[in-house]
């Protein structure tokens, strides 16, 4: 028990240090250890990191500057009605914190990230800035083929950057490493749904966020060790409500807000804050053409998300399924202010929940939000009301 407790504390402390290190010391250490290797920053939400990893590079997920970096320059680049994330990213870049990065991938998730790719081309022409045009056509023969070509073209850029060719076997090994990572993360997610009192939301969040910076193999090890250690703990089960959190897939809420929800009496049994590492459901094939495998996994098995056109299913059906599967009693919509994708999605998701009589409440936040009292009260009232409702 003591060992398990120490292990949990050690792992969470390591994850916490990574989370708070916006000078990217881990990236610098990686580069010292691998002087030839390159580092690629990946903007939210989903990038197929397998191809970056296969090129011998470190993919690092960039999610803004959180509540730790004062925005001095970033505000001069964006109007007040644009979300906080891009100003945080620009601040990191202009303050030199991203100097050890060699390139950046901007996935097609919204017009802000899309245009940020252009800002990058204008401000930092010496750095690779690749837009990743994620298909919104989910026919494997049409959108899937286009996406495979898109991946090939990004891989060509990465090969030019590193000066080395990437073989199909390299790609397959990386696909296997990420499959393993997703399996471990799923185990953690299932444990959260089953026994949330063992896995506080802030711990789970930090451990998953560590995957933003660590090499995938190291991250998988961390997740496995964390799950093994918490299973041995005797953490008290509280009379909390069980909620799903939705809408925070891009700009992240501050850690304090996540803690606030739990302190207000909500166990977060599922969330989309770290959906990027679970964007594909199940394994990607490790046989055959690896780029085609990545492409078909995306068009056939991407999760429901505001940035993916809901062609196959009724909007919100997957959220309702997630609520049922995780035995949640309600949903907290937590979306960044001015986030068109999340906020335009919400009325559809809320209608789907209403049909199934699943209660919900909604908040907006910015990554640098500092006051949680009002939200704490609202979340507490929500939690109380759904517990009563449940009875």
């Amino acid at each position: 028990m003591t060992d398990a407790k120490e292990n949990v504390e050690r792992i969470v402390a390591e994850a916490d240090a990574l989370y708070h290190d916006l000078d990217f010391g881990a990236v610098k250490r990686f580069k010292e250890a691998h002087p030839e290797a390159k580092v690629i920053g990946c903007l939210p939400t989903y990038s197929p990191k397998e191809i970056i990893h296969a090129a011998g590079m470190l993919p690092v997920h960039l999610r803004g500057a959180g509540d730790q970096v004062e925005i001095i320059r970033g505000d001069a680049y964006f109007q007040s009605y644009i979300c906080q994330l891009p100003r945080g990213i620009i601040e990191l870049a202009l303050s030199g914190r991203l100097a050890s990065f060699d390139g950046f991938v901007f996935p097609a998730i919204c017009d802000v990230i899309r245009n940020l790719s252009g800002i990058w081309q204008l401000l930092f022409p010496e750095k690779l800035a690749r837009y990743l045009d994620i298909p919104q056509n989910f026919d494997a023969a049409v959108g899937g083929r286009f996406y495979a070509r898109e991946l090939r073209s990004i891989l060509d850029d990465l090969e030019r950057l590193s000066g080395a060719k990437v073989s199909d076997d390299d790609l397959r090994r990386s696909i296997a490493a990420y499959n393993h990572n997703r399996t471990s993360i799923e185990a953690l997610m299932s444990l959260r749904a089953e026994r949330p009192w063992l896995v506080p939301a802030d711990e789970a969040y930090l451990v998953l966020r560590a995957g933003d910076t660590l090499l995938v193999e190291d991250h998988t090890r961390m997740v496995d060790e964390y799950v093994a250690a918490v299973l041995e703990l005797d953490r008290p089960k509280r009379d909390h409500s069980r909620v799903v959190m939705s809408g925070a897939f891009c700009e992240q809420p501050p850690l304090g807000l996540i803690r606030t929800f739990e302190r207000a009496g909500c166990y977060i049994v599922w969330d989309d804050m770290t959906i990027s590492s679970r964007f594909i459901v199940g394994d990607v094939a490790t046989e055959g053409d690896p780029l085609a495998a990545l492409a078909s996994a995306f068009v056939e098995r991407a999760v429901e998300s505001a940035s993916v056109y809901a062609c196959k299913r009724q909007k919100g059906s997957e959220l309702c399924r997630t609520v049922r599967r995780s035995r949640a009693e309600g949903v907290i919509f937590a979306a960044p202010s001015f986030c068109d994708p999340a906020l335009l999605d919400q009325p559809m998701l809320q209608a789907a929940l209403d049909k199934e009589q699943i209660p919900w409440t909604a908040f907006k936040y910015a990554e640098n939000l500092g006051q949680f009292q009002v939200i704490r009260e609202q979340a507490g009232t929500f939690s109380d009301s759904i517990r009563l409702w449940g009875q």
Partner: protein
Amino acid sequence: MTTVEKEPSMVKQKEMIAEHFDRLAAAGEHGKKVVYTFVPGNLTELLLSFDVLPVYPEINALQSAMRKRAGDFISEAERVGHSEDVCTYVKCDIGMKRKGNIGPTGQPLPKPDLLLLSYTGCFTFLKWFELLREEYDCPVVLLHTPYQAEGKVTGSMRDYMVEQLKSQVIPALEQLTGKPYDEDRLRTLLALSARAEDDMVHVLESAKHRPSPIDAYFGGVYYIGPMFTAFRGTEGAVDYYQTLRAEVDARVRAGEGPITPEGPMGPEKYRLVVEGPPNWTNFREFWQMFSDEGAVVVASTYTKVGGVYDFGFRHDPRDPLGTLADYCMGCYTNRSLPQRVSMLESYVKDYQADGVLVNSVKSCNSFSAGQLVMLREVEQRTGIAGGFIETDLVDARYFSAANVKNRIESYLQMIEQKRGKGPGATPAGAKEATP
């Protein structure tokens, strides 16, 4: 408010629009199918080749704002759960639907039989039609236009689009109408588009003259109307642009400036390039803030949102599906920021502008995110002063008239100081520019 005698082209456009809305109102009676689609990346020729009637929700939204109805519609959408933060075009449309779906001419709009989601240059389009799908419970066919992130169209992007047209969009229209795809008919319509496009470009480029015979932003939004909506590919559009061209040419010969809603504009003092959409809630007042000061917009990017024609693109009947793909991918907001900067730079130079002004609208991340960086870049490349104002498209809460007017006036003063000469003076080295 002064009443100004309308030119024949204005009368013609008004008639075209009225007829279109009459057809829409009678669509059910005549068994006509109705397709809702967006302005950027619209496939009007293809739709017309199937004899379906297009509806453009953005146009309804802007018309609602001009008729001062948008406020009600936006409140209605916010009442049913839409956030204050999101694009107001979407909310205006949803609110209008919920309040009876009455179109700009006062007639009810028919429900869509199909939503053609031309996902071109704006992510919000996806969300908008997901929302409309819930409202109308009708099929959606999506055309994903890849973004020109690298500043060019690649073979892969083009193939992807043509494959989508062949395997999804055309079959959806065949199923809707029960008619087979008629490529010859499409070619005929595309040839008509190209003729009208030639004349439209001639009109837009007439602003290279001094004085400019047109205002290429406030007036420009009228000039692009038929081309960007239901009329491209029709004889009506060809006639309209011939008429307009003749009127503009006559103004050039007479050395006349633009006609504004208040009458002919006074002497041209400032030549501006404008980036960003206009405000529609106070459109007339907004225009007057410029025209009263003798500021004429000689080129604008908003008038390229439904197609960029002034760098040579024309619909090409020899390659019907390929040309539709090229058209969609070339629309202004589907271009990378460096491409947009280069366009602005060339406008400043080619049209001998004194300034470049951004009207940043709260609604539109597609246009707005990055405009501050673009402006700085254009200033650096051209050496001219940039100006920045903030409004919204259809939400009057974000149009502060006094503030906007103040900013415009200070900006024009700044231009004045920069050129160091009296108003109206031709900058050193500038010659009469000809298109």
